[in-house]
């Protein structure tokens, strides 16, 4: 345990003593088992040292022991708020490595699933963010809507949270006959609910006071720190892999990339990051609607290879997950299981910025900033 604290040494000539406060691993608002070591001066943060790895589940080791299809359930368990996205990324990477062309219908369904997942993931982000700041009701409202999305997934593949749905080359099931109708219904219901959450939370004066001008992240710093996804867009940088490095069939849809505008504070503050997510949900709804309209017919399992045995080589592919660029780096040695898989988890990279963002703010702001980065520990620790 000796190394556990790196802040034990305090310089004696400091006028104000530094206090080291632990947040986590068990803490209501660290979104899981994250431990933050806060060096405080009064209530001002001098330094935040995140300690991660409390959920290190050895994903990469497992990959080396599994065959390619068996990895899919494990990818689910990384970013457990957006398993569809993880599977999607894995499928994209593997298909690139294998050089498979999958049927149109598969791609459309994948997009629909990924976008629904984005909504559900952002709903959790919104909800927990509200809960961090003390508003518990929006949290539950978000969960009500999320539950509807989970029901959609459940009728499709039978699982609520971890789907094992998107396989290399195809899907495990075709859509359920009710799916399209139910999805349309959901989107119709969802829009007013989103507005309600906006009224209740996003534009609430107290919420704005807590989040605007807190944790400002300039663009160049963000890029240098590898921050991606809504966090990067919150800083006002239009960067979305769905447009900038298109994969699957995203080029066929018409949607906007919302960026932070500094509505209530400076560009790149927590409120912007938060609000980008709200706007993204609307865009996702649009994508889902378009995809449902254009959905082609076809067989979803025709392209699934009987035995996956890629040639020797490496591949790096990335997709836009709800939390940012999710990258898979796969090295194949020609056998049925990969030689090495490395995942570039978006939260893992974004988390590094925490110390920079929190410096000079107060204890309460750490929670706000952490919430606005929207991390998932399963993905950070893998």
């Amino acid at each position: 345990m000796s190394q556990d604290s790196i802040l034990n040494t305090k310089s004696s000539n400091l006028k104000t003593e530094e206090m080291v406060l632990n947040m986590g691993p068990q803490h209501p608002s660290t979104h899981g088992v994250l431990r933050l070591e806060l060096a405080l001066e009064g209530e001002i943060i001098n330094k935040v040292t995140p300690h991660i790895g409390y959920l290190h589940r050895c994903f990469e080791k497992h990959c080396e022991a599994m065959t390619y299809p068996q990895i899919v359930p494990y990818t689910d368990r990384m970013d457990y708020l957006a398993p569809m996205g993880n599977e999607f990324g894995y499928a994209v990477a593997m298909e690139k490595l294998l050089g498979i062309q999958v049927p149109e219908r598969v791609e459309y369904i994948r997009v629909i699933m990924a976008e629904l997942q984005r909504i559900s993931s952002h709903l959790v982000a919104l909800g927990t963010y509200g809960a961090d700041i003390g508003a518990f009701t929006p949290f539950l409202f978000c969960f009500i809507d999320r539950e509807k999305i989970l029901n959609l997934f459940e009728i499709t593949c039978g699982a609520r949270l971890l789907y094992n749905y998107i396989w290399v080359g195809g899907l495990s099931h075709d859509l359920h006959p009710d799916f399209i109708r139910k999805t349309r219904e959901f989107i119709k219901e969802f829009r007013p609910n989103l507005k309600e959450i906006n009224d209740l939370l996003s534009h609430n004066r107290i919420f704005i006071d807590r989040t605007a001008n807190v944790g400002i992240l300039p663009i160049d710093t963000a890029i240098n720190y590898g921050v991606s996804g809504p966090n990067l867009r919150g800083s006002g940088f239009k960067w979305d892999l769905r447009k900038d490095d298109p994969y699957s069939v995203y080029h066929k849809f018409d949607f906007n990339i919302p960026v932070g505008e500094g509505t209530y504070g400076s560009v790149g503050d927590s409120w912007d990051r938060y609000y980008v997510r709200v706007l993204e949900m609307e865009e996702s709804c649009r994508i889902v609607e378009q995809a449902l309209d254009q959905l082609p017919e076809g067989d979803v399992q025709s392209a699934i290879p009987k035995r996956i045995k890629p040639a020797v080589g490496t591949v790096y592919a990335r997709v836009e997950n709800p939390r940012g660029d999710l990258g898979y780096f796969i090295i194949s040695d020609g056998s049925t299981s990969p030689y090495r898989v490395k995942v570039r988890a978006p939260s893992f990279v974004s988390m590094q910025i925490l110390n920079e963002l929190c410096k000079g703010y107060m204890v309460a702001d750490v929670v706000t900033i952490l919430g606005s980065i929207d991390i998932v520990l399963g993905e950070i620790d893998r």
Partner: protein
Amino acid sequence: MKKAEEIFQLLKDNFPASSLELKTDQPTEPILLASALEIDKLCLFLRDSSELLFDDLMNLSGVDEPKSGLLSVYYHLGSTKFKHKITLKVSTDRNKPEVSSVTEVWKASDWHEREAYDLLGIIFLNHPDLRRILMPYDWDAGYPLRKDYENPEFYQGMKVPY
């Protein structure tokens, strides 16, 4: 938007002394082999050269290659402006795995490097804070992602294997 060959050429021109090599026999993307101790300078150039502007370190992964007695590090770089990408690979001796850190170039590499250290034991020179990151700080059973890793029987009195 630049092809890997052009980037390679540019690098060759600017670093005549370095040993650079472009492996194009890959099924997906070519890999640029570089030397482990010069990678930081190379990366700085890649980031700052106005024709390249690789401002985005997409990924950094360590790989154990016990057959050739090497530990390698792959860098996946991208540019948000030109949207080109490149993959770099450096290799180092498995017994004395030392690679120059690129944290000064991309802060994003900080934790990636710590992770590579933690799981594979690659030592990144000049890294500001090279500690274990995922495994417990007092884990002394080696580097789990190495192919020859053996799990210990007990950790702090808890049985580890099933």
